């Protein structure tokens, strides 16, 4: 695919990462969480948001983390994306230990490896659709003409040809989220994190966006990690992690039709 070729150029000075990538591509294990703990102090008591989580996500997978609110699913996602530090445990993404990076390193890592889709879209209100999509590329120092071209292609990909020049407040929620999807894809990330991507959409639009995400992820061979409280939406995922009270209680593999595989938390899935 031609439009992705720039990705190689902007991988500036990441030989360390590249080496890791090679190794991980043999194992194809892109995200690994080991004994993750996150404790919050609320007043005098301590809340365990994550209580010893172990799991792996493989390259090209579409995973859903499902749980009720307060189950720790958002905390888990934040930790995987390097927005929050674990109290204890390891997060290894693409061979890099996230818990060991400082804030600058995390930002750099996100810039180069991660795409984000937010629940409330979080588009920049003063920028039109193309500019919003092109924004993450500007952080990488891609020249304007080039990033506009790529952003245009991305918007074509998410079927928003007609709304390229529209500002966020001139678009419906579904359209905005499609811009959000395009923005996540534009940097050619290895992994895309989605935090309740359909939380602010009606059920019909939700289906649309989910199908779009599913399709794009398949075509582009991206790893997608989605957090949701909706069991129904989780069905779009290849694998579903059920999380309750900071522990993964069940992992469902939708690809193995009819045959449900479940595991206790703390054990790793063997391949």
């Amino acid at each position: 695919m031609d439009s992705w070729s720039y990705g190689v150029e902007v991988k500036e000075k990441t030989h360390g990462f590249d080496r890791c990538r090679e190794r991980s591509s043999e194992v194809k294990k892109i995200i690994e969480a080991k004994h993750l703990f996150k404790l919050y102090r609320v007043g005098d008591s301590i809340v365990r948001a994550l209580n010893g989580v172990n799991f792996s996500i493989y390259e090209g997978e579409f995973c859903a983390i499902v749980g009720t609110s307060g189950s720790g699913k958002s905390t888990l996602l934040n930790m995987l994306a390097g927005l929050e530090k674990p109290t204890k445990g390891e997060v290894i993404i693409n061979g890099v230990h996230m818990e060991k990076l400082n804030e600058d390193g995390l930002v750099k890592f996100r810039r180069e490896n991660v795409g984000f889709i937010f629940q409330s879209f979080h588009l920049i209100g003063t920028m039109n659709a193309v500019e919003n999509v092109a924004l993450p590329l500007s952080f990488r120092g891609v020249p304007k003409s080039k990033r506009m071209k790529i952003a245009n292609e991305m918007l074509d990909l998410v079927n928003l040809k007609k709304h390229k020049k529209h500002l966020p407040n001139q678009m419906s929620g579904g359209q905005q989220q499609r811009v959000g999807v395009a923005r996540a894809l534009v940097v050619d990330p290895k992994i895309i994190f989605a935090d309740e991507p359909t939380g602010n959409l009606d059920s019909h639009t939700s289906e649309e966006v989910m199908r779009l995400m599913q399709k794009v992820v398949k075509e582009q061979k991206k790893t997608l990690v989605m957090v949701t409280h909706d069991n129904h939406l989780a069905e779009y995922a290849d694998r579903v992690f059920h999380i309750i009270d900071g522990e993964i209680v069940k992992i469902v593999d939708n690809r193995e039709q009819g045959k449900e595989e479940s595991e206790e938390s703390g054990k790793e899935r063997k391949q």
Partner: protein
Amino acid sequence: MSLIDLLRMSSGNLKRRKLRTFLTVLGVVIGTASIVVMISLGLGMQKSMYKQVEESGGITNIDVTGKNNGGGGVIVSSDMMHQDQESEKYITDEAIKELSKIEHVKMASPVLSMSAMILKGNYEGYIDLRGMRPEALEEQNIPLIEGSRLPETKTSNLELIIGNLIPEMLYEKNTGKGYWETGKLPEIDYMKDSLFLILDSDAYLASKQNGTSSLEQSLGKNEGQGGNQASAKAPKKYVVHASGMVKGDLNTYNSHSYYVYCDLDTLIASLKKEYGTKPIPGQPTTKSGKPYKEFVYSSACVQVDDIDYVEEVSAKIREMGYTANSNAEYLKSMQSQFAIIQAVLGGIGAVSLLVAAIGIANTMMMSIYERTKEIGVIKVLGCSLKNIKQMFLIEAGFIGLLGGVIGNILSMLLSFGINTIAGSMGSAMGFEGDISYIPIWLILASLGFAILVGMAAGYFPALRAMRLSPLAAIRNE
């Protein structure tokens, strides 16, 4: 992130909040304008002062005086400094030679100042006569009216350059009333009419006291004979012509206005002829009352090739035992005074810029609170911390720049206004030159300062933006 993208984002953010940006910029405008206008007033003062000094014989001149020869009429034009130390030597031809040998001295020439009288018809007046060599006269840059020329040297007749305020000095012989009492100027065309010059004014006064009738008699005789020696008592009256006049009317003053210049050698020749073996007044005498062999000048005018060496040369001259005064040294002492004045004026202006800086900090703080979410999002999307900081610093710097530019335009308008008003008022008061002067460096410096203040004010807000947790920013409410 490339610089152009940073600039684009920052300016975009400012455009988004036009009114707030305008108000913040307005603060900087007022601050910058007050600093620039205040300093421009100080600079204007300094400049007009420089101009004045320049007119009074240039800034590379050193006035050298020797041992006080006790005579009247020794007038030093700039006797503000270094008068405390008594010099030991007279200014003689030898001294002039010595002076001209000093390094960086372009020219050293003697000056003889003395008091004299001029007579014309019914009027008479005391003048300060300054005899100078032609090359020194040229260096004085005396502004002359049209048709003037410098006095010729080595002639038997004295030629004068008359200061433009000399007419004020004449008074009526009988009544003793001058211009200040009568308000009328004697009708004399100095350029065409011939005047009488009396070098020995003491003798003239003495003869006048002896009897006005005999004087008038001799006067009439003298007029007929054209300057021959009349009586033993009355001093010689020279018929002199003006070769030039100092430019300007009675309302303009410069350092030449009250002087009458003539050629030095001609003056000395006349003096020697007049007094013969008697000591010339103003010349030092030995204990027995005899004059020295050498002629003693009242001062020497030393030209230095560059203003930077003036101090050095002055020091050397003082070492040699003379008293030296220079405008450059005077200027230097003035400079530090002006620096203080400017600092005070600029400080007053700076207060308003400080207030503007607080305004900028406030605006930036508001803007960061408003955009907490946006900052979080771009952080999550991979905008580096450095870029976020830069973005806000540039935004604050933009406010400073904008305020600086508009402030400078405003202060130029103000300066123009001040000068126009002061110009119309000043010409009536005999004051010339601009009160307010804005040089290019002041514009650039104030621009830079405004940007700096903006950035300094935006620094802590920018740090705050940088440290915002992306989590708090993107949390769904």
